[in-house]
Structures are given as C-alpha cells and as structure tokens.
C-alpha cells in the first residue's frame, strides 16, 4: 500500500475542524481566482489526462468484456437474464463500497480504480449490444445467410455494424457515467480532476477556485467525450440516418 501515505495526508478530519467556529469563522478566498488557473495550467492539464486515462481504461476494458458477455448471451439466450442481473448488481453497488472491497485484493492503486469504474459499464454496454443486435431486421440477416454468410462473418460484417448506433449510444452513457465517477477516486489519491475538488475542500480556508475548476472541467470533459462519440457514430455509419433509441 504505497499510496496509503498520500491518502492519509489527503483525508481524515479537515484542517479547520479543530478551529473554533469551524469553517464558517474562517477568512474567505474569492469565489474565483483566474491567476490560480493560469499559474496551474500544467497541473490542470495533467489531471485532465489522468481523468481521461482512467475513463479510457475503464470503458475500454468494459467494452471488451461486454462484447464477450454479449456474444455469450446471444448464443445462449438463457444466460442473458443472469448476466444482466449480475451487471445490475455491480451497477447498484456504491463506488465507495467497491473501492473499499477491492482493497485487500489490489490495495490502493490505479488497478483498484479501473476495476471499480469498469463494473459500472457492464450493465449498460451488454444491454445495448444485445438490444442493438436484436434490432437488426430479420430479413437482412436472412439475405446475408442466403448469400452464404457464415455465423462469424454474419456477426462481424452484418450484425455488429448495423447495431453500431445502439452500441455507441451505450458507450456514450457509460463514458459520461464513468467520467463523473472518476472524481470519487480522489479518495484513492487519484481522482483526475476530482483531486482539485478534494484539495479545494480540504485546505484552510477552502479554495473555491479548485472546487469549481474540478467540477466544471469534469462536466466539460463528459460533454466533449459525448460529442466525440456521437461524431464517431456518424462517421462509422454513413448509411444510417436513424436515431439510436436506447
């Protein structure tokens, strides 16, 4: 647990908790200080990259695992309900509990954060992949089979591309969800932009600029990734004008 020291420094009772009158009695910093943003541009950039890295790892691994699970569920229909049930269970478990329960297995680490974040993508992605492929018109599948497409080619060249709008819709939801949750990994000494939120809250007196920068940039990142995935969908499915509904 090499990260433990960082966490100990970052948490526990806030510095102002021993001050008479608590936080309310403290002198206040201005609500927003541009010069802090300018001076710390490099740190903000690094935190943004860490945020993107954690999101990319979680969604990437989640997508690979979900594709595998979806293929299993499509092949053996009876397994779809149990897979969704487990996905739902993982989705329901609070992130804070997951980080904690992974502690004995992987300690306080990037691995811990990535595993926990990945679990939130499974339900959304498996459901959208299966729904997307189920939505491929039967006559299209039959036409392909009539043209001699075998199972694997049918899946990779016909079903998967036609299901892309629904799959990418799921990918957008999963990415936006994970980007929001990455901020909580500040508890593990990571957090990406969430580290500013935690620091801004911890210091004496509280530092609104850091809190606002962390939160606003996290929202901006979510919107940006959402729009990029939407653009990716448009680029990958030039034949399709229909809107993803799931």
């Amino acid at each position, binding site marked *: 647990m090499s990260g433990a020291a960082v966490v100990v420094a970052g948490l526990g009772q806030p510095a102002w908790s021993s001050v008479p009158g608590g936080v309310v009695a403290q002198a206040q910093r201005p609500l927003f200080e541009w010069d802090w943003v300018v001076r710390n541009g490099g740190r903000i950039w690094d935190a943004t990259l860490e945020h993107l890295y954690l999101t990319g790892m979680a969604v990437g691994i989640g997508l690979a695992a979900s594709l595998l699970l979806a293929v299993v569920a499509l092949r053996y229909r009876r397994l779809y309900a149990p897979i969704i049930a487990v996905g739902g269970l993982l989705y329901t478990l609070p992130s804070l509990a997951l980080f904690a329960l992974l502690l004995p297995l992987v300690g306080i680490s990037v691995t811990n954060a990535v595993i926990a974040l990945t679990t939130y993508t499974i339900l959304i992605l498996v459901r959208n992949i299966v729904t997307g492929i189920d939505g491929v018109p039967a006559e299209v599948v039959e036409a392909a089979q009539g043209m001699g497409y075998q199972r694997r080619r049918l899946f990779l060249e016909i079903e998967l591309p036609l299901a892309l709008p629904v799959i990418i819709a799921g990918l957008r939801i999963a990415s936006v969800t994970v980007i929001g*949750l990455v901020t909580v990994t500040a508890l593990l000494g990571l957090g990406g932009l969430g580290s500013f939120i935690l620091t801004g809250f911890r210091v004496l007196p509280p530092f609104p600029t850091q*809190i606002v920068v962390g939160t606003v940039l996290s929202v901006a990142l979510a919107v940006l990734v959402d729009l990029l995935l939407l653009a990716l969908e448009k680029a990958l499915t030039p034949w399709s004008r229909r809107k993803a509904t799931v």
Partner: protein
Amino acid sequence: MSELLAEVAAWFAAEGRWSLTDSGGVPFRTAQHLYVSVTATVLAVLIAIPPALVLAHRRTAEAFASAVVNIGRAIPSFGLIVIFWLIAARTGWLGTDFWPLVGALVALALPPIFTNTYTAVREVDAPTVEAARGMGYDETRILTEIELPLATPVMLAGVRLAFVQVIATTAIGAIVTNGGGLGRYIVDGFAQGVGGRATVIGGALLLGALTLLAEAGFGGLQRLLTPTGVRRDTPVQDVTVGAAG
C-alpha cells in the same frame, strides 16, 4: 486473507458497534444514512413529478425532458456535494452537515425521476386517452385517472433508480460532511491507512447490504403502489439509466 477476515470479524464484534445509542454504532449510522437518503428522494419526487406529469400531458418540453437526464449524468456527484457544502459554509445558512448534502442529493435525483415520469406518461397508449376524451373526461381527469395510473410502473422504476443512486451518493457525502451515514466508516478507515482496513471493509459490506436491501425493499413498495389493473408479471425495466454513484 484469513488474518484480514479475523480483523473484519473483530470489527463487527467490537464493543458498542451495535449499540442503539452510540453515534458511532451501526444502527445510528444506518438510520442516519436512510434519513438523509429518504429525505432527499422524497423532496426530489415532490419537486420533479408534478411538472413532469403536466408537461408530458401537454406534450411539451420534449427536448428538455431528454436533455435533462444527460446533463444530470454528466455532473460529478462528488463535485456537486462539495459545491453545496461550500455555499452552505460561506453563507453560514442551514448548517454544513445535513442540508448541503440533502440539497446535492435532491439535485442528482431530479433528472432520472423527471425523465422517467415524463416518458411514462408519454408512453401511455394514445387511443386509450382518446377514448377517455370521447367519453367526456376533462383534461384533469384524463391526467389523474387515466395517464397517472397507467404510467405508475415506469414512473416508480425511475424513483427506485434515483433512490438507489441517492443511497450510494450519500456515502460519498461522508468525504465532505458528517451526514454520510455508513460512508463515514469507509472514509474514516481510508484516512487511517493500513490500520483502518477492517473499518473500510466492514463499512463497505454494510453499505453494499443496505443498498441491495433498499432496492429490494423498494421493489415491494413498487408492487404495493402499482394499481392492480396495470400490474405485469415481469418487473418493469427503467426507461433511462441514471447515473451510478
């Protein structure tokens, strides 16, 4: 690993852990957790459902209804809690423990409840509504006697989703305020480093159990509140997935 299990078992068996009066005990923390979560969910229901019903009945604000859930998902709950806490701390208004956390939780619960209610009413079979209109029902009766009962299953699925999300996020609130219920164990345990691992894991097990029990319990409430005429054999899937906590 077995050593850790013994530590966790010892943590659960520690003196005062199950005391009904100790503010560090499991009963107090669980009650606090549920108090915060239920207050926030009830407030969100009261705020979100009436406008969602009326707007959906009037067939307006469709773009708003679909956008609001996406915006809600993009806002990091941790950041929102800290911002509400900051506002409370600066204004000295309503204290820094209970209301800032509840306020942030309400804000997070509004989008899924609003959007699910809106979608639920919009999905009510149009011929059914027309038939009621033809029978002379006025708009208020159509909304309260036709659309509302038929929309109930999907609407409640949205509330359950929000409630579970609120319970998870209440725990995150322990990082910021004293109102975080069971999350307090996890956050305090992390702060103690290696020595706190039994606290962290004990708290996480309790929090996980509370979340799953709350979801199951809400399922029972859902069956109770769903009008007999619209009950289905299969549980209703939520229309929109809310944010995870």
